[in-house]
């Protein structure tokens, strides 16, 4: 195709069209990038200049005070620790259960394959709603414990279907057959055939689930009571959305205006501090999740 398009000369109209396309994409990419760069530069600038609108893409009145305040705050660290803990344990549970479900569903000789699929898919479109869920979590004794954030969301049906499709399309039936003839059981097949061959799909699942855990706040908001259990997002919510940054600012500031300024600066810094880990991770995993989405797209 590449060679063909070079052989046939681009017409005038095509070149104009292509130029317009490039310009549009350029504008779009800038529109997406600009706010992100602005937040970075605002976090490094003097809050006074930020508020008066004098900061553009380059930091002005460089100072790191906002970052210092963020790092000095012990609740941010508690949040970080909890989020990492929930993300690691939660993702491990997610992956284990998702693969355990995907494997039998991908096997043609599993007799209840179709009925299981129907049973699982219904839950994608119908759910009990927020109150029955809340009562269930409470009755199971999960209220105010980290398991309330992990167990109710242990499997995502869409992800399980993606994993199933991956196993179906990449692992050849004949591999299983020859393994069976050698006396291999399905359990053994899972550990010595399926798991070693599913590294790409597990990378996709890790990304999807880890991002979910890292970013979720709603479950934590309704199920957790102790501040020591709060994930990072709940502290961020207080600072960014509810404007309750008193404890981040420490108590030593007396004047109201400077208090306000510090609070504004802290907002930008806290955005950077909380988003950098996940933003750093994803370019490395990009090729995997594009592949994963592709599998989902073709046979979803």
């Amino acid at each position, binding site marked *: 195709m590449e060679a063909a398009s070079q052989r046939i000369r681009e017409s005038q109209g095509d070149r104009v069209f292509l130029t317009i396309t490039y310009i549009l994409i350029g504008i779009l990419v800038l529109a997406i990038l600009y706010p992100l760069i602005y937040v970075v530069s605002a976090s490094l600038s003097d809050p006074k200049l930020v508020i008066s609108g004098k900061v553009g893409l380059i930091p002005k009145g460089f100072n790191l005070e906002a970052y210092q305040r963020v790092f000095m705050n012990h609740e941010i660290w508690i949040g970080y620790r909890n989020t990492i803990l929930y993300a690691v344990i939660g993702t491990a549970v997610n992956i284990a259960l998702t693969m355990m479900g995907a494997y039998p569903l991908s096997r043609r000789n599993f007799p209840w394959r179709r009925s299981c699929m129907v049973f699982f898919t219904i839950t994608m479109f119908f759910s009990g709603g927020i109150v029955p869920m809340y009562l269930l979590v409470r009755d199971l004794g999960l209220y105010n414990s980290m398991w309330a954030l992990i167990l109710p969301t242990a499997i995502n049906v869409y992800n399980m279907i993606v994993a199933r499709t991956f196993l179906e399309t990449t692992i050849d039936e004949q591999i299983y057959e020859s393994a069976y003839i050698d006396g291999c059981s399905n359990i053994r097949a899972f550990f010595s055939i399926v798991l070693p061959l599913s590294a790409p799909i597990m990378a996709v699942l890790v990304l999807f689930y880890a991002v979910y855990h890292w970013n979720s706040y709603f479950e934590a908001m309704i199920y957790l009571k102790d501040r020591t259990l709060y994930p990072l997002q709940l502290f961020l919510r207080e600072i960014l959305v509810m404007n309750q940054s008193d404890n981040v600012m420490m108590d030593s500031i007396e004047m109201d205006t400077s208090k306000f300024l510090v609070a504004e600066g802290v907002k930008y810094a806290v955005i950077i501090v909380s988003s950098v880990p996940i933003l750093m991770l994803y370019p490395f995993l990009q090729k995997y999740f594009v592949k994963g*989405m592709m599998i989902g797209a073709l046979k979803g």
Partner: protein
Amino acid sequence: MPVKAKSAPASVHKSARKKLGIRNNWDYLIFIIPVILYFLIFCYGPMYGVQLAFKRFNPALGITSSPWIGTDNFERLFGSFQFARILKNTLVINLLKTFISFPIPIILALMFNEIRRERLKKTFQTITYAPYFISTVVFVGIINLFLTGENGYINNVLEMFGIAPIPFLTSPDYFSGVYVGSDIWRNSGWNSIIFIAALSGVDPQLHESAQIDGASRFKRIIHVNLPCIMPTIVIQFILQMGKMMTLSYERILLMQNSLNIEASEVISTYAYKTGLINMDYGFSTAVGLFNNVINIVLLLAANKIAKRYSSSSLF
């Protein structure tokens, strides 16, 4: 035994597979049973609780023994002054989302597909995906920092041009616009992945022959690329319709304030507030159930339309 031996030579391969298959089936259960248990407890369990919509919940009695009150909760919902408002808000925000932010990822994917320089394409894509990885809380935080009344970034810029500040976040008039606009900013890149993936499956020979026939780039997009990814578009559209009433209430909840509540209260946020804040469990469940039923009706309708007018459908 002899019967089996007779049939065996006909297709050794097939019968071997079947026999081994049946013998080995039990151990699949070890994998699937925990999964089924999860669904029974955490997905079908709450469905059992849906009966609360028809009950007056009494904590001392629990879900099963609380007294039935028929459709009282629904009558209260339909009679409430809030009802028309939350239904309208939900529909407005969703229709805007379906007709404005749904096509953009498709256009984006078609444009990306025209870029032939792989490195450039990858860089652009990386940038457009980035906002998707920002958490909802941080995302709403950024919206607030940019759009607040007096010292938000956008209003500062407007001020430089002598335009009066716009109350983006504190007036009901702007809520749906801000919601949908920010949704486009955050999700367009990510949502385009699926269409880019579909485009990579377009047969290059179709393009070659169209080119030989003298089709321009634009014509090839319309007559080759678009029809080829149509099934994916249809499926995504149906799924979008199914999600129509659910919305991302997590985000709306964060963007709400007492000044824009008139335009920002949707069915799902209303269910959250009546249920978990006012502890009106039965009523909230009724609101949730109403939401769910509309969802399913829309999903089935979209699926039916798709089935009639195109070859692809969800089920």
